[in-house]
């Protein structure tokens, strides 16, 4: 039946999005709404010695000017693990683009022009833009005090190391076995260092929110992946109870982990309080670039191997350039470190992963969450090992890949899919080992592949959900998972439709409003289908159970004689449809049942990260590339992406997420990089920052989505959406090496460098 799990149920948001009727935050017209603009520092590092907004306040149409002088906050600091960013600069500005003040006015032009009237005096300080500079002796401290929350609770093998009076804001270590002994026992030891860019998420929809601070509390309409986290931050900053704050999330035009909505909302709330009007803060494309990005990475992999190709020991060192304010980057450092040894059997591992402050654009989570950085490194490293030892790259991987059920890390969830089988599939799909058709003159062609995985589903994320049965048998799902394009609303609809055996359009997925929507940690980590899906599933089961109990009572039967089957309540010979059963219990038009569901994995200090990994999200890929010998340009002519969904609930959505993730990865492999000069971001626009386009779509492009079951979610579902990005950069670079003999150690591939390398070889 349509609406069943495994079917392509029409998307809940389909009609709205293809007709333009779907409302995004920037489309909302809140009565009385005025407009906020922010003033940004031109300096990468400076003390703010004086700030005076009084002239701006005099301008007709200006309704509020926000500076550190009139903030009226319980605390000005926002952030995740580390509260390091003030809503407007208090003591210093720490990157070119840092916010020093804000204006709310009756129209955008007035607000924009009023910024020029704010007087700011800066005392410039030496600026640091690289990790090397930040770690040098006597490097200036970017944050004199680091406001850390209590350090995370790590388990077996994992630890947190505090660095005082340092620009290192987070240091995660993972250790097992004895790498020293491992290297001694190895026949070969290889060490390679890799570089991964700072990419910007560039969602098509900008960072935008509308905030209304009035006598009833605070209402925020925000484009955000984390409405409850946002509520928490607003409560903390403004010293308000959570119950006074309401976050409403319209459709979100792309997230990819970019902490959208947070900065505009905090500024908007502060302005709204001063202006006593709702305030919309909508960042321009350039401002979005200057708000958040992925941390640039330098990763050293050192491996000890036996001469038969068995991996024994791995030492990883990761340095993440965390920018001026770090959001989730400490967690990215932790996850990247944890994933740093890849899907391989390695008895001895030592990984140190550092997040380091610099005076550049703030960083945070980005699709893949550290996964792409380490996958690029370890999968390039493995290919280099194969080349040095004259081993076939597929054989070398097959020899060392974990078997299903084997531990990735002792204490954690065992691997839950067939990695060797997956490797065979991508190799076959790309035609590995087959005779290559000759490339045309001036072009070199080659193939490469990569195997990667990440712990999927986040760590100890909590998901609550409600499912309501209404009197006429229609159903409503209350789930805090944000529709950012992945199709999560439709998945929740499908789960409930499946559990009640009703058509999809009998199930409504309600909009997100933290006043009514049950708590969810955030929409991230490829977690919604498995975790929130479990909560929704549990809520559906709970609602059904309440109905059965109520029906049993009404029918005078013991509970054991009532059951739910094929969408009906069965009691002895009686069969009641949902609406009839509800009316039996509540009368012709009254009453409702609210089923509640919850899912969260427990703390377990036997697990390195303190709580079991919900599932393993794999990202295997194989690429065929053509390298233009005249320009050094790389074209991907064939790409195969493979991931394991556990169970495919909506095939089109799964395919879309994997293909989208792969092309996202293509961007980092070939084009995307935030470029700085003297601390200033040089390319905060789409002319100078290149995104993947239709022309980059590989002529042959396919995804393989496995359903190996065994996932934590209902029906054995796992999660997906990030796997696709992991293998792209290493598969492409391995293919470039196969084609030309040139080994790429840094992405994005610079055509100039590649051309130079090609010419040196010829």
């Amino acid at each position, binding site marked *: 039946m349509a609406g069943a799990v495994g079917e392509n149920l*029409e*998307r809940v*948001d*389909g*009609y*709205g*999005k*293809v*007709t*333009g*009727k*779907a*409302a*995004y935050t*920037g*489309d909302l017209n809140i009565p009385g709404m005025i407009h906020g603009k922010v003033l940004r520092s031109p300096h990468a590092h400076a003390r703010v010695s004086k700030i005076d907004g009084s002239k701006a306040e005099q301008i007709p149409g200006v309704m509020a000017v926000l500076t550190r002088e009139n903030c009226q906050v319980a605390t000005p600091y926002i952030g995740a693990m580390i509260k390091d960013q003030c809503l407007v600069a208090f003591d210093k500005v720490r990157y070119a683009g840092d916010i020093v003040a804000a204006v709310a006015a009756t129209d955008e032009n007035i607000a924009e022009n009023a910024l020029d009237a704010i007087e700011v005096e800066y005392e410039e300080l030496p600026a640091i833009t690289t990790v090397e500079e930040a770690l040098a002796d006597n490097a200036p401290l970017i944050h004199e005090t680091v406001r850390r929350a209590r350090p995370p609770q790590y388990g077996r093998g994992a630890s947190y190391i505090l660095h005082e009076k340092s620009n290192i804001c987070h240091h995660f270590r993972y250790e097992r076995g004895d790498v020293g002994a491992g290297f001694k026992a190895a026949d070969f030891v290889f060490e390679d260092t890799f570089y991964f860019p700072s990419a910007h998420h*560039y*969602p*098509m*929809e*900008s960072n935008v929110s509308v905030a209304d601070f009035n006598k009833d509390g605070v209402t925020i309409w925000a484009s955000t992946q984390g409405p409850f986290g946002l509520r928490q931050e607003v409560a903390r900053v403004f010293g308000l109870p959570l119950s006074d704050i309401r976050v409403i999330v319209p*459709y*979100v*035009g*792309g*997230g*990819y982990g970019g902490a959208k909505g947070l900065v505009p909302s905090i500024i908007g709330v502060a302005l709204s309080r001063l202006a006593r009007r709702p305030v919309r803060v909508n960042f*321009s*494309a350039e401002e979005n670039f200057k708000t958040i990005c992925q941390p640039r990475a330098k990763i050293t992999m050192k491996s000890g191997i036996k001469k038969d190709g068995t991996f024994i020991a791995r030492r990883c060192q990761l340095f993440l350039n965390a920018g001026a304010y770090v959001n989730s980057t400490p967690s990215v450092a932790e996850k990247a470190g944890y994933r740093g040894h890849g899907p391989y059997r390695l008895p001895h591992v030592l990984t140190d992963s550092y997040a380091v402050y610099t005076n550049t654009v703030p960083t945070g989570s980005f699709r893949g969450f550290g996964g792409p950085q380490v996958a690029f490194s370890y999968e390039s490293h493995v290919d280099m090992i194969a080349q040095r030892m004259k081993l076939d790259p597929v054989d070398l991987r097959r020899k060392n890949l974990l078997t299903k059920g084997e531990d990735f890390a002792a204490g954690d969830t065992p691997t839950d899919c067939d990695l060797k089988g997956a490797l065979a599939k991508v190799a076959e799909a790309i035609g590995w080992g087959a005779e290559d058709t000759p490339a045309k003159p001036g072009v070199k062609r080659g193939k490469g592949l990569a195997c990667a995985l990440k712990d999927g589903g986040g760590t100890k994320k909590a998901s609550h959900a409600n499912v309501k049965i209404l009197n006429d048998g229609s159903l409503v799902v209350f789930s805090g998972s944000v529709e*950012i*394009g*992945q*199709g999560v609303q439709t998945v929740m609809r499908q789960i409930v439709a499946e559990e009640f055996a009703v058509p999809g359009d009998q199930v409504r997925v309600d909009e997100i409003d933290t006043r009514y929507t049950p708590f969810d940690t955030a929409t991230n980590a490829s977690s919604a289908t498995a975790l929130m899906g479990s909560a929704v599933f549990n809520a559906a089961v709970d609602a059904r159970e309440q109905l059965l109990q109520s029906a049993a009572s009404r029918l005078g039967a013991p509970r054991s004689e009532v059951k739910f089957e094929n969408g009906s309540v069965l009691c002895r010979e009686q069969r009641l449809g949902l609406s009839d059963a509800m009316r039996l219990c509540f009368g012709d038009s009254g009453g409702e049942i609210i089923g509640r569901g919850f899912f969260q994995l427990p703390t377990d200090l036997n697990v390195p990260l303190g709580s079991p990994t919900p599932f393993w999200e794999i990202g295997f890929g194989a690429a065929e590339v053509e390298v233009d010998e005249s320009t050094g340009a790389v074209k991907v002519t064939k790409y195969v992406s493979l991931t394991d969904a556990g169970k495919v609930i909506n095939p*089109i*959505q799964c*395919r*879309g*997420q994997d*293909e*989208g*993730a*792969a*092309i*996202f990865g293509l961007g980092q492999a070939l084009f995307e990089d935030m470029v700085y000069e003297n601390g200033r971001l040089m390319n905060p*626009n*789409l*002319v100078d920052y290149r*995104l*993947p*386009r*239709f*022309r*980059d*779509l590989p002529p042959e*492009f396919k995804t393989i989505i496995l359903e190996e079951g065994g996932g934590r979610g209902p029906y054995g579902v796992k999660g997906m959406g990030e796997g696709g990005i992991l293998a792209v950069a290493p598969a492409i670079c391995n293919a470039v090496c196969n084609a030309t003999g040139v080994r790429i150690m840094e992405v994005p591939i610079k055509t100039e460098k590649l051309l130079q390398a090609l010419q040196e070889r010829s």
Partner: protein
Amino acid sequence: MSEELVPIRFYVNGEQHETQVKAHDLMIDFLRERLGLTGTKRSCDMEVCGTCTVLLDGKAVSSCSLFAFELDGKNLTTIEGLEGPDGLHPLQKAFIRCGGFQCGFCTPGMILLAKSLLMENPDPTREQVCEYMDANICRCTGYQMIVESILHAAKEMQAANR
């Protein structure tokens, strides 16, 4: 500089409008704020991404980089104009059926660009679709399912015309 008003008369989605705009008003802001047609979205603001695409006399143009007064005497189609009394346009149906959208923000512009393609070339090859649609950016789908949506719509539209 006085903000003089420019009278304009034009059609939007088949409906005639007569009004005045300030000379420096941009078409996209006029559409979204004055006419309430918020289906047209702004993204890069420099004609690179095509999110703001509308059809002006059937031609795909960037509404973020045109003055509102350019509407005078013209026939504008926005995404709101595609659904007819008989229902969704074949392109809209195809984008739903074939997964041509995810977050949906680029979708109005993408569908309109596709419409202009099919008006010019009702039976395009995959390569021709990619070459033409290269004008617009999508960050979610990875493009392949958009191509399939357009090819599907083209087939449906051709079948309907027989």
